[in-house]
């Protein structure tokens, strides 16, 4: 769907000028991001870095001891495997432990999407749009490297890069397919768990790529939203009855998040949005649209509130009777 554009106001013009954003974007943020001033301030600072211990190879406590002995300062987070890097004497991607696959540099929000998927040993799981493999490797470790993860990536170069990351992390339960995610429902298989971390307009990661302040356009939102609708329809058909579909993006745009999930609820019967313990409630209204009240169970993560990249997570129990 087309991105909804709101009229400029004195506030949006002033903030856009102060923080060097396009005005249309700030006008939209004022509609769906709480405490926009704090948010824009936060986006000026480098985001907190997180690492995820690869429990296939090392326990988080042991990793923490090793890295702290090299001068890193690390703090526990909501997830036992994930540590926030508070002080780094060198690049966190240049240590021996990194090369040995003892950890993966991954934002807490991405890890929460995997946590929401609640994978178990010996399950069959599909990760749609899987490259570079951060969520795939986290799922693999939660599954104790058993069962099967089908990881889909259409681009050969990215699929190959993903295979290197899986190798570094010592993951053996994965099958990489070079396939367009919108066609995943043609595989002829059903899965216990389906993860769709959909390609998005990346509004949530502006702090990592400040060029998005002005290069991001309403067309990006429209293109992504249309593709996300096709992808989630395909993903929904892959879930075994009673299985879970987690839909996530690193965008704040409702057209890429609540609108997509609300559309799916209307399209398919017997879907329940399960609540999650973190983040803030998803939107139940946007402009003149009113969504299912259950959309409040989806989750939004904001950099200035949750100290993560901007993220949206919906956990959908499919085929509930």
């Amino acid at each position: 769907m087309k991105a909804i554009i709101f009229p400029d106001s004195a506030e949006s013009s002033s903030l856009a000028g102060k923080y060097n954003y396009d005005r249309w974007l700030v006008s939209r943020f004022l509609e769906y991001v709480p405490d926009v001033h704090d948010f824009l301030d936060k986006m000026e600072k480098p985001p907190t870095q997180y690492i995820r211990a690869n429990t296939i190879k090392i326990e988080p406590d042991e990793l923490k001891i090793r890295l702290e002995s090299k001068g890193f300062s690390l703090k526990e987070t909501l997830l036992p495997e994930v540590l926030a890097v508070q002080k780094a004497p060198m690049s966190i991607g240049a240590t021996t432990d990194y090369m040995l696959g003892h950890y993966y540099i991954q934002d807490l929000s991405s890890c929460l999407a995997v946590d929401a998927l609640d994978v178990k040993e010996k399950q069959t799981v599909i990760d749609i749009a899987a490259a570079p493999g951060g969520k795939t490797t986290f799922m693999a470790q939660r599954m104790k490297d058993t069962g099967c993860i089908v990881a889909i990536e259409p681009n050969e170069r990215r699929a190959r890069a993903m295979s290197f990351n899986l190798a570094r992390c010592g993951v053996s339960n994965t099958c990489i397919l070079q396939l367009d995610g919108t066609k995943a429902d043609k595989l002829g298989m059903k899965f216990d768990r389906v993860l769709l971390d959909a390609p998005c307009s990346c509004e949530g990661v502006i702090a990592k790529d400040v060029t998005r302040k002005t290069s991001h356009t309403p067309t990006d939102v429209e293109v992504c939203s249309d593709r996300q609708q096709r992808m989630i329809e395909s993903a929904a058909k892959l879930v075994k009855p009673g299985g879970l579909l987690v839909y996530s993006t690193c965008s704040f745009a409702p057209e890429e998040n609540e609108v997509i999930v609300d559309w799916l609820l209307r399209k398919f019967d017997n879907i329940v949005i399960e609540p999650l313990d973190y983040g803030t409630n998803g939107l139940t209204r946007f402009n003149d649209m009113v969504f299912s009240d259950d959309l409040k169970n989806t989750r939004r993560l904001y950099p200035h509130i949750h100290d993560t990249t901007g993220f949206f997570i919906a956990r959908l129990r499919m085929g509930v009777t």
Partner: protein
Amino acid sequence: MKYRMPTRQEKTLLNRALDKWGVFEYFKEKLLMIGHEDDGSAKICIVSPESRAASSKLEPYFLGLVIGDLKKQFAPSLPGADLFARVGKSNEYYITVDENAEKLVLYGRDVMGNSILQCSDTIDENELVIILNSRNESIGVGRTRFAGSSLLQKGKITVTTLADAGQYLRDEG
């Protein structure tokens, strides 16, 4: 890659190789498949039973974890060496190097004799070895230039590094 089950002859070769690397017991319960690259080379992959079942219905671009190459003999890959060091019993085909050499190996440099903390008296020249750091973690795969205690010669490169975990970082760049 195209994947298939190993032939009986290949299984025998693999069992011998896994025994050599001290991991035969671990792999007794594991499923191995052979993946053929476009150039015809054969990669040995550890695969879960569920992944194998899925791969029979799909056309995988990549399957499982490549633990080594199979030509006339088996040669462990980096992830294979890492797995062997974690699950196997260290034997004559493993050498341990000091912290300084660990850093150098991770830059792709060869191993000097005086940096070897532990090696076997019975290892031959021109043998493949897994290079361990002082924590017994695999940091690379090498080939001996000398036999037995001659590997400890001071001031000489005694093990050629063929692959090292630093490659993961260099490939990212």
